[in-house]
């Protein structure tokens, strides 16, 4: 129910800059995910939107209003904290009621709202319990219920699933996304988990060391990475990045020869995802190496090759089995080879090599 803008926002802690020059425009009802490694400034950014942290420079705008001077409690922003931050002395019912009580919502209206919020996260049977008597996943849902109960303008979530086990995490992911679509509340979600980001986001903001590296839809981030950082961060297992040289339309590295756009030359890094590689028995191939490791996951088999100094990962057939040290040849999907400037990490797009993928 609100558009959020960050205009030139900077956050400094003494001489250390946590967030530098952040420009961000989050559309109404959008689900935006801030993704990046630990310490890159995601939480700081979110806390500045919430009003728990004051930007050193720049403006935070919510719903068209500059809110720098607006106190956190008046911003109509709800947040789910990483540690849930439930009130330990109150029952779940009281926890969910607290924001209603603090905002002076009439007693008669409270009960229906609380029960509806609890139903949404399937917590109706636990309203009498104290947070200490709930499991991690239930606490998580209680925190969600407390956040949604008053229909805030903005929904902020700081790594809400990071304390849950893998199975619960994937089911909570679906619930959160469903909830956000249902309530149509602008949401900013922080995570360092790229799967979470890919599955939840309308758009992903990838950050590193306080700087935005790329903003885009999950698809754009995956298939059109702006630099080696984004390329290496997204995808599991991540994109293979091989340093080499490009000359006259040929990229070469130890054990690897690939065609490249003729106008690219110099010290170049080639990137190709494991899933865009194919094991071939004969015929022309870009890469030759020896089997270093085989990892069957059930759904597929990941093959690690050694070529020269580097390890290279390839997604192979589900039932593929290889002997360690066996020579293997790999073909790349020509549509899905990326080239980066080795020095700066920036993506080099010589020609519109990517037609419709």
């Amino acid at each position, binding site marked *: 129910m609100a558009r959020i803008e960050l205009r030139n926002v900077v956050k400094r802690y003494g001489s250390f800059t946590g967030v530098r020059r952040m420009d961000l425009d989050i559309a109404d009802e959008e689900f935006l995910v801030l993704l990046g490694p630990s310490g890159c400034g995601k939480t700081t950014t979110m806390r500045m939107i919430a009003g728990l942290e004051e930007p050193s420079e720049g403006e935070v705008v919510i719903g068209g209003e500059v809110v720098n001077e607006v106190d956190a409690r008046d911003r109509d922003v709800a947040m789910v904290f990483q540690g849930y*931050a439930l009130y330990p002395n109150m029952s779940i019912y009281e926890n969910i009621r607290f924001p209603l009580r603090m905002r002076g919502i009439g007693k008669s209206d409270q009960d229906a709202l609380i029960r509806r919020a609890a139903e949404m996260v399937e917590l109706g049977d636990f309203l009498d319990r104290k947070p200490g008597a709930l499991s991690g996943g239930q606490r998580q849902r209680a925190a969600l219920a407390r956040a949604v109960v*008053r229909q805030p303008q903005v929904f902020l979530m700081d790594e809400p699933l990071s304390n849950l086990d893998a199975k619960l995490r994937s089911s909570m992911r679906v619930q959160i996304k469903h909830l956000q679509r249902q309530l149509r509340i602008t949401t900013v979600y922080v995570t360092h988990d790229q799967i979470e980001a890919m599955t939840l986001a309308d758009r992903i903001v990838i950050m590193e060391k306080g700087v935005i590296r790329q903003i885009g839809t999950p698809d754009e981030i995956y298939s059109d990475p702006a630099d080696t950082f984004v390329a290496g961060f997204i995808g599991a297992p991540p994109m293979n990045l091989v340093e080499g040289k490009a000359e006259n339309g040929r990229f070469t590295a130890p054990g690897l020869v690939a065609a490249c756009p003729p106008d690219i030359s110099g010290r170049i890094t080639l990137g190709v995802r494991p899933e865009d590689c194919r094991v071939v028995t004969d015929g022309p191939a870009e890469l030759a190496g020896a089997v270093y490791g085989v990892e069957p996951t059930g759904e597929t088999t990941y093959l690690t090759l050694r070529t020269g100094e580097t390890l290279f990962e390839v997604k192979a057939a589900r039932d593929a089995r290889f002997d360690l040290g066996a020579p293997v040849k790999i073909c790349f999907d020509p549509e899905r080879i990326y080239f980066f400037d080795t020095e700066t990490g920036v993506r080099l797009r010589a020609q519109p090599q990517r037609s419709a993928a």
Partner: protein
Amino acid sequence: MAVLDQTGGVARAAPDRARPREKALRRRSSALRRAFPYLLVAPAVIYLLGITLYPGAYAIYQSFYLVRFTEWIPVGFDNYVELWSDSEFWQALLNTLIIGGIALALECVIAMALAFFAYRDALIRVWRIVFLMPMLFMPSAVAFVWKLAFNDGRVISDLLRKIGLIDGNLDFLGNVWLARSTLIVADLWQWTPFLFIIFVAALQSQDQEVEEAARLDGASWPAIFWNVSLPMIRPVIAVAVVLRGIDITTMFTNVFILTKGTPGGTTETISYFIYRQGFQTFNFGYASAAAVVMLVVTILAAQLVVKRAFRSGKA
């Protein structure tokens, strides 16, 4: 598992190969090693037992005797029976409850109010040191200063007259409530900081995310304090109040120096009553009985408060 078994086997095999004398040596040194921690804490334990358990047991023993200097006459529960009907004892108990209760309540409220304003303050380190200072003075020295201010030097009386609150001189020893309030004020000044420092520490160590959550839920600072912070630090409050309460129940120094129980025994606390019975009338058995009663009452009260606070803090 295999690895574990192997190492275990090796360790077990080693002593068998050693010669008997070495074995004995090793056994003795391992006994020493086991005793070593106890030896380390022994001095402290002996000291503590010496100054608490021994006198305590001695007092209980003595309370069943009529003690006339060197002559001990066993009287069974006579001392306790006499206490039960001793109006001075009941008066002292009541005085202790009134003076201690008011002082403790005021100290809690003031310390908590100050802690509320101070714990998020940037200058909190300074505040802590400033507030620590009254506790660093020797209680008897402070008592003499209060004596000067209230009674002998009439400082407070003069000040009140100067600002026009009173006409004549106030005789702080001549009025029940004035005399009691001198004791309360003196205790307040010296011991509110104790609670303040504990409360600030408790407030600072609570989970900050929870306060922030309350902030975003729309709560004002007072509302957060009342609904979230206070309940969370409740066990700490209980422990601090019990400690202070025990201390206040044994209030003696200020009574001894400032009022000596006047007027008419209305400021005589239990400790002063015990002192008077023991060291002025040399009725040691009777004094011991009063001390034992106080001990039991204090332990029961403390247990009650702590248990309640911790129980409702959980689940």
